[in-house]
């Protein structure tokens, strides 16, 4: 069996946070999260119900990941099609939904940035925008953050632009709307897992092969160590890896979240050509 990659460790850990009966939101451009949901459904959480942002559906139906045929996965066999206004303004704030959200930058209070790197008026990189994260962070007590590259560029002392609020000073202003249940719960990176408390991020678990020293070096914000000791996260089981690699995501679509620039484009092209070939093969 091939060596375990970082994306696989993350997927398996995130999968462990899903329980059967959960109602999960699969967002936009996050195949890593999707892999985790599907893995949970294939193993210990068979009764997961999905809200698919692509397709705009509520579904209990799943298939292997795809880029070309993602809508086929989310729409075929769905329970219900909804409008985004219903999904975001009615369902998400009313029901207990679980989500994983990926910020471009995050600080020790769980404040996130998906708007710009650099100065807002003259950005170095314009990012996609806040999406619904601002809102979800304000009213959903049941979501986690994750980043695919543990670095001082991502885990920062101060976000360049705060597009969603965690704890600390900014949360006080948020609380002017009435005390909210809570902010983000955990922050998962490709090295470790923090949990958030009102005082900031607390390291609670590390992936196999990581060290606290290394993590400290690559983290742009200060953090405490969990009082209960740091958990060593078990590597994925062979069964998990088999399901993930062979059934859920044989083309490695989840890895796109870890790639940038030309590497990402090449990987995309490879996947698309492969999907094209498979379709022709089945024709």
């Amino acid at each position, binding site marked *: 069996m091939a060596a375990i990659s970082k994306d696989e460790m993350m997927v398996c850990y995130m999968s462990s946070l899903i329980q059967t009966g959960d109602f999960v939101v699969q967002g936009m451009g996050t195949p890593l999260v999707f892999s985790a949901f599907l893995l949970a459904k294939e193993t210990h959480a068979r009764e997961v119900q999905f809200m698919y942002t692509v397709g*705009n559906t509520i579904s209990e139906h799943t298939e292997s990941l795809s880029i070309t045929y993602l809508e086929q996965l989310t729409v075929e066999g769905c329970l219900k099609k909804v409008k985004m206004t219903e999904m975001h303004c009615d369902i998400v704030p009313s029901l207990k939904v679980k989500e994983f959200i990926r910020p471009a930058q995050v600080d020790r209070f769980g404040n996130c940035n998906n708007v710009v790197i650099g100065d807002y008026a003259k950005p170095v990189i314009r990012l996609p925008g806040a999406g619904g994260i601002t809102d979800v962070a304000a009213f959903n007590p049941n979501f986690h953050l994750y980043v695919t590259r543990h670095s001082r560029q991502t885990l920062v002392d101060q976000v360049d632009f705060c597009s969603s609020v965690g704890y600390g000073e900014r949360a006080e202003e948020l609380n002017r709307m009435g005390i909210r249940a809570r902010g983000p719960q955990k922050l998962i990176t490709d090295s470790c897992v923090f949990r958030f408390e009102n005082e900031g991020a607390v390291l609670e678990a590390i992936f196999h092969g990581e060290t606290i020293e290394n993590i400290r070096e690559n983290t742009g914000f200060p953090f405490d160590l969990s009082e209960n000791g740091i958990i060593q996260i078990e590597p994925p089981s062979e069964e998990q890896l088999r399901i993930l690699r062979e059934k859920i995501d044989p083309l490695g679509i989840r890895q796109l979240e870890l790639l940038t620039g030309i590497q990402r484009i090449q990987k995309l092209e490879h996947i698309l050509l492969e999907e094209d070939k498979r379709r022709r093969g089945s024709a």
Partner: protein
Amino acid sequence: MTSKRMSIEQAVKPIKDGQTLGVGGMLIYRRPTALILELIKQGKWNLTALGWTLGYETDLLIGAKAVSHVRTSFFSLEIFGLPPAYRKAVEKDAIKITEETETTLGIGIRAAAQGVGFMPGRTLLGSDILTVRKDIKRIECPYTGEIYPAIPAIRPEVTFIHALAADENGNAILGANLCIDVELAQLSTYTIVSAEKIVPRGSLPSGQVDIIGASVDAVVEVQGGSWPTSCYPDYPLDGLELVRYLKTMKSHSFDEYLLELESRKRSFLLKMDEEVNDGSYLER
């Protein structure tokens, strides 16, 4: 029988420079690209693009310098990454942005539908969105004493929607990714529906109509009207065309990208047609 059916030129013609355009579809799915390309062809400019998300289709408008202002919560090519023309324009300060979130859009269009100037939302406070959205004021709840941002009403003037099928009255079927198309059509003064096919009135499958005729002003038949974004279940996303877009924008110019777009679209549709006949894409 009165009919709203017309040519794409006729349908797009009444749109005025400077108007706010509601863009139907979502992410890289069922975007009204044929109508967008006609807008570019007719040389409209200074438009505001309004959408729950914006992507490839609006990136084309920015590449063609037709759009000077965007209002969206998420401008992205989804798994394909950042949209090159938009990024370039923003980083050169060549475009105005009104930062939205899903709530500012959702509550804002509900306020517009209701004919009120604002609705409160449980969001934004503490974030820098409020710092840059200087237009958003706060309001105190007369019952709870809580302070909310007062989300301003928002509405498009014209809207583009691509549909699977429509009749001449504008009743239309969207298939998937309903997003906020229904609301955009209802709120706009002028709504154009392009459709893969126009069918006789009364022949759309009962209970499956998404857009109602009463909210539509013009109907246009365009095959492949959302290519290279998808038109589920008629054809899937043409991901390789999006890759070509990213590559061309990296190494060449926007104008170059537009060359032979029509013929690439035709070959994609032809390929899909053959495979649909073989029953390979989706068995319907």
